[in-house]
């Protein structure tokens, strides 16, 4: 009796500590959200904590009036969709043949792919390659050079390995070729993993920054992270806002908060739907050949 009481107390303490971690993770985001929805005056007086003060959509309104920012949002969304689709196809194409133990040259192909995880040419040789391929300032440079992640390939390959060979063999007896087997048997079974990988690829592209910084000087193709970097570092003030006399330092703080929210909200929106899948995906990644 005494013991179970002690146990209950322990459970509550643990729950409380976990709550602390929840607060640590969420409060910074809540604060930025509150700032983005507060009036400039409230921010000047440092009155905003975790709830909007003098609620207003003004900051969002001004960010949305900046055509370059909105264009960048739209462009990044399109780019993310394209990259995710291309990368998923590439990942499937790479991992599926590698599960055929009888495939000649499999070891070589496998090793060739894995090696790129451990040794990369480096920033400067890569940069020069993009120049040689005339990809600088070409939107394709944001899609092609990272359209296959070997880490994600390993995750999918481990999963496909787990599907019993007998399924494949019976389909082969029915006269199905490898491609038909992939489409009819393997892909339908891999939906959860593919969802995880789609999340990884999509987030990777949406959050991608350094490739744009290095390879895409043309502001026309600047993805949202590059744009956001410029906004929060005052490299490009939101133009329209300035024209309308909205350039007091505290006001630009609101604009920064709203800009951060624009880059964050898409992730927050897809996250709850996909988060139940990715745990199994990450654990699979730890099982490497």
């Amino acid at each position: 009796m005494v013991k179970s009481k002690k146990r209950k107390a322990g459970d509550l303490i643990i729950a409380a500590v976990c709550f602390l971690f929840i607060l640590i993770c969420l409060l910074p985001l809540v604060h930025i959200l509150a700032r983005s929805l507060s009036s400039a005056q409230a921010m000047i007086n440092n009155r905003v904590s975790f709830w909007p003060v003098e609620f207003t959509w003004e900051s969002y309104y001004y960010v949305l009036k900046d055509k370059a920012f909105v264009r960048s949002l739209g462009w990044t969304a399109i780019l993310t969709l394209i990259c995710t689709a291309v990368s998923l196809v590439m990942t499937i194409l790479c991992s599926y043949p590698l599960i055929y133990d009888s495939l000649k040259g499999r070891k070589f192909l496998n090793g060739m792919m894995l090696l790129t995880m451990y040794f990369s040419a480096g920033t400067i040789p890569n940069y020069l390659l993009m120049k040689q391929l005339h990809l600088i300032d070409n939107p394709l440079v944001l899609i092609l050079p990272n359209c296959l992640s070997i880490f994600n390939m390993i995750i999918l390959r481990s999963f496909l390995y787990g599907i019993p060979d007998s399924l494949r063999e019976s389909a082969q007896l029915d006269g199905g070729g490898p491609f038909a087997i992939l489409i009819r048997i393997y892909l339908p079974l891999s939906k959860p993993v593919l969802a995880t990988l789609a999340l990884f690829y999509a987030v990777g592209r949406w959050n991608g920054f350094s490739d744009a910084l290095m390879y895409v000087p043309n502001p026309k193709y600047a993805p949202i992270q590059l744009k956001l970097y410029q906004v929060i570092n005052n490299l490009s003030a939101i133009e329209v806002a300035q024209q309308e006399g909205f350039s007091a330092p505290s006001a630009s703080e609101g604009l920064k908060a709203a800009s951060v929210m624009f880059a964050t909200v898409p992730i927050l929106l897809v996250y709850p739907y996909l988060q139940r899948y990715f745990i199994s995906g990450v654990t699979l990644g730890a099982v490497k050949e």
Partner: protein
Amino acid sequence: MKQKSVTRKTILYFKKTWTLYLMMALPVAFAVIFRYLPMTNIAMAFKEYNMFKGVWDSPWSTPIFKWFITAFSTRDFWLALRNTLTLNLLDLFFGFPLPIMLALLLNELAFRRYKRFTQAVVYLPHFLSWIIISGIAMQLLAPRTGIVNVGLSHLGFQTVNFLTENGLYIGTYIALGLWKEMGWNTIIYLAAITGINPELYEAAEVDGASRLRKIWHVTLPGIRSTIIVLLVMNLGRILGSEFDRPYAMYNSLVMNVADVLSTYVYRVGVRGFQFSLTAAVGLFQSLVCVVFLLTANAIAKKFGERGIM
């Protein structure tokens, strides 16, 4: 006769498998063009690279290791190297134990739905970019208007320049890394914990073991090999450097402690056009990283684990 049947076998083999090879064609082309082709450009680390001549027609430098020698006698390079090591070691020191503790904590959490919710929340920061996080941090930690400093001054403390003073910058850099990854890094430990035989817990229960004793004598030994492998692999990455994280956070006031190899290569190479010098720095870093990783992998295997290869 025998020859013929071998040929026929080969033909039959390719008839059955050509689609597989066709599928591999695109990934192989990708790897060759975007991963192996740039390796030929590494030659520029040993050349007097001239933009108009290209890598191959540029003359070899004399002595051949000229750019490595130049780099090693540059103060900024040594600073970047030192900072890379310092920041990574601090990351490891603080960032390694915390996820283990958090995983143990989550594992002990009795309320199922609350546990899932907690997990979902602590994994979330992993999905935010360093640009977003530095944007949040700059607003939170601003000297006069940031909520942290406003709070500090309300409590009667002096305000703190978190991002513009050397020591504080390092602390903030490490803390933000913890914020982003501590939850995510629990996943692998939680998975290892589920692999522990439940009978061990039952036996401990029968022996009257308390919660802490069970953690100490069952859970921790159960994930010991996972801990060792991850520790060794993290040590293998000790000279690797992220780019987005330092680049998004640093500023001219803290350059001495904030500049790491990746940002150094970017500033001096891509922006400063010293291609050969920074290619040499990059090659040095890549090579050391590979050696460390291979060593780490070998050690991890010694511990009876699969390692990562």
